[in-house]
C-alpha cells in the first residue's frame, strides 16, 4: 500500500500539495513546526495511489512517497 510522508522540517505550509492531491488526503496540521508553519500531513494513507502529484508540486522537496 502506498504511503506519503511530509517532513515537517522542510514543509512551509504553502498548501500546494493539498491542492494537487486528487484524493484530498493532505491537509494542514493542527501542530506547528519549528518555523511556525502548519505543515501538510496525510490524513488517510489508505487511499493514496502514489500518483506523486504532491511530490511534483512541493517547492520544498518535503515529501517522500513509498509504494
Amino acid at each position, binding site marked *: *500500500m502506498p*504511503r506519503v510522508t511530509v517532513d515537517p*522540517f*522542510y514543509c*512551509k*505550509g*504553502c*498548501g*500546494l500539495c493539498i*491542492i*494537487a492531491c486528487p484524493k484530498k488526503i493532505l491537509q494542514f496540521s493542527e501542530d506547528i513546526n519549528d518555523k511556525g*508553519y502548519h505543515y501538510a500531513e496525510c490524513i488517510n494513507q489508505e487511499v493514496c495511489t*502514489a500518483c*506523486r*502529484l504532491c*511530490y*511534483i*508540486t*512541493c*517547492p*520544498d*522537496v518535503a*515529501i*517522500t*512517497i*513509498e*509504494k
Partner: protein
Amino acid sequence: MQVIAKRPETLTAEPFTYCPGCTHGIATRLIAEAIEEHGLINLMAGVAPVGCAVFAYKFFNFDMAEAAHGRAPAVATGMKRGRPNMHIFTYQGDGDLAAIGTAEIVHAANRGEHISIFFINNAIYGMTGGQMAPTTLAGMKTTTSPYGRNPDDIGYPIRMCELLASLVAPYYIERVSLLSPGDILRAKKAVNKAIQYNKEERGFTFIEFISTCPTNWGFDPDKAREWAKENMLPYYKLGVFRDKGEEVQ
C-alpha cells in the same frame, strides 16, 4: 515497500530559503533530479546567483561557486575552461540574468559555452523586496514601478529566450513553466534534456522557467500560479526556441 519519490541525493539536507509556495524550489529540485538521473553528481558543479537563489550553493550536494550579481555565466565560463572534464550550470533570476548580467549571458551564449543556464523568471526582484525587473510586465506594479510599468518610459519586458535565439551558437533554448503539475513534468523533460546535452558536451543550453513570487506579488501560492498563467504566459510563450539535437542532420 519501495521509495518512489524522495529528496534526491544531489540536494543537501539544507532547507531551501525560498518563501512558502514559491516555485523556485521546484526548479531547484528538477535540476538536482536531472543531475542525479544522469549520474553526474561527481562531475557537476554549479554557480549560484545573487537574488532569491543566492544560497543555492548550500542546496546542491556537490561543489558550488557563488557569483557576483549577474556574473554567473562568466564565472561558469572560467570554471568550465579550467576543468573541461566537469559539467557546469548556473542558476539565475531575472534581475541577475536579464538586467545586471545581460552582457555576461549574451556573450556566454554567443561563445556557445558548454554550460547550462537555468533562468527563473518571475517578473520581479524577490530578494530585495519586490522591485521592478527587466521582465516585469507592462502595467505591473512593483515597489519601483508604483504606478505600473510604463513601457514608454522604461521599455517593454525582455524576452530572454527570443533574444538568445537570435544568436547562432546556442544549442538548446526552451521556455517552460512551473504553474501546474503538468507544466512541471514538461519542465522536468526540458531540464533533463539540458543536462543530457551538457553531459554530452553538445553546447550552450538555456532553460527559462516562468515562476511565481507569491510574497511580492501579494497573492497566496495558488492564486500566484493562476495570475502567472493569465498574465505571464500570453507574453512569455512557452516552447522550444532552439534544439539543434532535434534538427534534421
